């Protein structure tokens, strides 16, 4: 008993007090910025393994970007990855970073459904569904609840059943075999509910976008409330995204 108490004492506080302002170090790749420097745009776009970069003007879609960093290594004067991890947003367009746009990624408040802030602003229970996910986003979602990030302090946690949940958070490109179970889980959640896509696989299919083994048709009739980019999404990105969506202040 004394030994246990000693260890607890020595370990001290493990949680990160301010999750909004953690200084991550390079080479961590967060929000990219694209300068107005002139480069061979086609070569840049061709380089991107996920087709996330478009030309004229140059833009980068974080919903597709695997954050492999190859573009920034080949064209350092054109693309840089900052360490800004607050990149989750509620519209698909906001994930697209444009040339010369250095502003942080924001949540479009006018597009948030009213029920979200009034109902989920103090407590949010999410059901996680992995639909072809590679287990990295899943592990990062688990990590949001660990003693360092401790998302539980905000009344947010993951439930064992969709019946107990306020919403669903999907990882993975949605394999054909999981499309049915995902729909069943979504329908089992009582209204009002929120729907979150976590990781580039879920947002766009990621590297699997061309695979014939996917069935993303389930997304057609569901309104997405939050897109959390990353490959996998960093726990800080996930936490900031969810809290910015559901609360004015936190």
């Amino acid at each position: 008993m004394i030994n246990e108490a000693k260890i607890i004492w020595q370990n001290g506080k493990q949680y990160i007090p301010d999750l909004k302002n953690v200084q991550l170090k390079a080479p961590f790749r967060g929000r990219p910025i694209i300068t107005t420097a002139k480069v061979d745009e086609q070569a840049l776009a061709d380089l991107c393994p996920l087709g996330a970069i478009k030309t004229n003007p140059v833009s980068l879609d974080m919903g597709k970007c695997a954050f492999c960093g190859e573009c920034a290594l080949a064209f350092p004067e054109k693309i840089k990855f900052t360490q800004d991890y607050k990149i989750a947003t509620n519209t698909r367009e906001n994930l697209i970073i444009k040339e010369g746009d250095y502003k942080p990624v924001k949540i479009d408040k006018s597009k948030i459904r009213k029920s979200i802030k009034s109902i989920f602003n103090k407590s949010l229970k999410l059901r996680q569904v992995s639909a072809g996910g590679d287990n990295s986003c899943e592990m990062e979602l688990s990590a949001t609840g660990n003693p360092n990030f401790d998302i539980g302090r905000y009344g947010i946690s993951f439930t064992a059943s969709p019946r107990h949940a306020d919403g669903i958070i999907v990882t993975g490109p949605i394999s054909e075999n999981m499309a049915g179970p995902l729909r069943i889980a979504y329908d089992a959640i009582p209204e009002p509910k929120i729907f979150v896509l976590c990781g580039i696989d879920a947002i766009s299919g990621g590297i699997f976008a061309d695979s014939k083994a996917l069935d993303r048709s389930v997304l057609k009739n569901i309104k997405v409330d939050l897109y959390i980019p990353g490959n996998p999404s960093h726990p800080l990105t996930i936490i900031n995204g969810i809290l910015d969506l559901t609360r004015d202040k936190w």
Partner: protein
Amino acid sequence: MSRLPNLLRIKNNQSIDLGKIENLTYADFYALAIDLLKDDDKHCTNYFAYPYKDGLQFIMAIADDVHQDIIILSHILKGTDKQELKALTKENFALHIFEREIYENYGVYFTGHPWLKPLRFAHDRALKEIQINDYPFYKIKSEELHEVGVGPIHAGIIEPGHFRFICNGENVLHLEIQLGWQHRGIEKLILDKENLLQRTILAESIAGDTVIGHTLAFVQIMESLSNKKVDEQIHIERSLALELERIAIHIGDISALCVDAAYYLGANLFGVLRTPIINFLQLWSGNRFGKSLIRPGGTNYPFTDDLKQELWQILDNFEQKFEEIAYIVYRLPSIQNRFDFVGTVTKKQAKLIGTVGLSARMSDIKRDIRMTHPNIAYKKFPYETVTVKKGDVFARFLLKKKEIRHSIAWIRNVLSSFDFNSKKKQKPNYNLNFKANSLSISLVEGWRGEICHCALTNEDGNLQYYKIKDPSMHNWKALELSLRNVEISDFPINNKSYNLSYCGHDL
């Protein structure tokens, strides 16, 4: 057998001309494979078929732990032949999973196979009659017994799979695990995407918890097929990352097991220790799982002196805290009571089903690719493997602790005796040209066990087939056996003690 052919043997990460592979008749192949696999020092690391002319060529790779090489056997089934073969599984149970895969993908029927069922419901399978919701589970007719179905979606943040228990009250008599829900068509995509960077990113996504393990196997194959020589330092850096990945996952598993034994002090303190290790990978490569670190032909993120200093410090800190809490947890009666004698897989059973990696070593089988088929890094810095005897949940719990210690010792040995030169910069090369008509095999001991990738090129030097085997392919059977005569409430500790991959299996 009419005659004994000279066995074709290749080393790990070597490639050979496809023309050198002798195609045996199926009768000879059958007899030879069964005969070779009787030996305890040999096991089948991969057995697959691929479209060849108008039929199929079957390739079996048998790892020979004594000679430290891989024996290649092959036979051909012409399209005009009857698509039916005698099941090897009848005489060597460990091969059941491979025959099921071939049956599902190509419709070749294996007579005498005890349960020739679909494996992963791949999108491009030949066997389309059975859908994923109609899987033919094993049934026992009885008034007294009941079935419990769990999944595909589970209660936690975990990948999907369906578990079907047959229970007598609280006791599980039988468990059958049905996978395939995660199937993304990754092997097909690797062939379809011709850009090597895209292929590397696919390899990183085979199993996101084994990024280093699978990507290492992938790049070793790519370098072998293109005769690309990589600095010794890069080989060593990659294996450093492999050991860090092992430490991070093992400590996470130990923490998760403490949760299930309701010992939250252990759960939290072990959980906290995972963070510095994966954050180190982030400091090194920019990603907590090491995505973008392993690249064919070189690296974008060399192991600098600063990183070396940092790693020394992290390990010192880690080890002190780890030993402190482990000293308490591993002696705790409540933990021992929960884990001891639960979910035992005996050595005999483990050999029968052909477990690999941690799942073999928990039952006193010394099976470790780092030791028996070492790559350049483990040749220079040998790794001594560690086993435990009992094969129960506590054995797996204990083995994870021991492996963490061994990995730390190995990393320390490398850091103190290898002269890292951070000025050496060998950049990745995404324009490798492959040798035509070649076969290459790479084995890597990931944290779960033996990862095996095989690639074949055609006469133009393009990839014509890519086969991935995650250790989970073998080891899911061990989890099924663990549950026999165990209370159903002990399923979570058994499942977590294995922590097998769904997506690695489903591909």
